């Protein structure tokens, strides 16, 4: 109980430090996630219809997913230095595999009859991708987004090791200073963010599975 009291006391005394760390964490996560999605989603659409390329892409994503986040962060340091940029790059790398794999699989499991119909209607490839294929793939794509978001929020906690800031700072500082309150505030906030990301994106995923058109806008 006294450790919990320490956490509350620290939070009460340092709301500004906590706010900055939280904002940094969100900024890191959102930027990394958006860049990852901006790469993985078009790449997934591009390779999905080419079986051999799709298979190679999934294998590559599997390899990428196997790499430990801390190793990726650390390996980027000699290339990109410390701070925000290498952290965001590492987070984007974390976000790519789940989105990429789920986009490819989602597009490949889309009903071929619907695609034929779209072609028969004379839709251009871009219209088909945006209007037909992506909506059909939406449930799996959103599952990929959920996994990516949770992993990015978790990995953003490690950005502290290369000076990227965020809530991980509170944990490492708390450990270094033997300040359990500070450490616990950081840990609880990181855990809460991850669970929130899981729940929020899970909601999106269920809506996507229920069908965009039936869902209230």
């Amino acid at each position: 109980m006294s450790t919990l009291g320490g956490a509350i006391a620290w939070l009460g005394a340092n709301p500004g430090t906590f706010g900055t760390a939280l904002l940094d964490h969100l900024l890191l996560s959102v930027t990394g996630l958006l860049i990852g999605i901006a790469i993985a989603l078009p790449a997934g659409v591009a390779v999905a219809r080419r079986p051999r390329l799709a298979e190679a892409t999934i294998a590559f994503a599997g390899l990428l997913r196997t790499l430990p986040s801390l190793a990726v962060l650390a390996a980027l340091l000699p290339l990109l230095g410390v701070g925000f940029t290498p952290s965001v790059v590492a987070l984007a790398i974390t976000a790519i595999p789940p989105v990429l794999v789920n986009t490819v699989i989602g597009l490949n499991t889309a009903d071929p009859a619907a695609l034929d119909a779209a072609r028969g209607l004379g839709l251009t490839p871009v219209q088909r991708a945006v209007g037909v294929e992506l909506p059909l793939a939406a449930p799996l794509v959103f599952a990929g987004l959920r996994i990516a978001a949770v992993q990015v929020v978790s990995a953003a906690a490690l950005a502290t090791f290369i000076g990227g800031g965020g809530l991980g700072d509170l944990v490492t500082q708390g450990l270094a200073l033997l300040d359990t309150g500070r450490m616990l505030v950081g840990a609880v906030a990181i855990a809460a963010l991850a669970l929130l990301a899981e729940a929020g994106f899970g909601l999106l995923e269920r809506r996507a599975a229920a069908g965009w058109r039936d869902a209230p806008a």
Partner: protein
Amino acid sequence: MRWTARNLDTVAAATLLHVELVLAAIAVALIIGLPLGLAVARAARLRAAVLGGASILYSLPTLALFALLVPVLGLGFWPALVALVTYALPILLRALVSGLASVPPAVLDAATGMGLTARQRLWRVELPLAMPALLGGLRIAGVTLVSAATVGALIGAGGLGVLILTGLDQGHTEKILVGAGLVAALALVLDQALALVQRRLPASRAVPA
């Protein structure tokens, strides 16, 4: 590679400790997870509760979990081991329960009809059929733990994370890259080794991956 050449024993010891930590955590998680999974697989309500709790545990970020356990367990190898077991357990539980749930009821009926006792049915029918799913869980657990054990260096677990963290502190690029490279290699090797076992399983041919 000057530093590495002069500190091969340090690097080897860190690698060995890392492997030990991961293997020990998986072993403990299996010892706890197998009976627990078997117990909850048959009880629908208990299963939902255990799987729900497991997915929350699995969503907890590594750094947060380690930090949350420090006030309770302190620093060092053993607290890190407990944290890693906490990570591996939900993965293995989920894999085992979904593997057991995927056994077709007709197969179970046939086994019972052939006069197998509940125990024989479990060992000869259900567990072999759940094996591919369990191995899939072991693969995920292995990769997750290699990664999590690296962060464990922060709470004194030892292992390859120490090379990375001290390298970062000292601005020692070679140390950082050797640590990061070895951790990545360890994750890849473990994943591929288990994938090989998975492909060798006779039952895996019937179940699409």
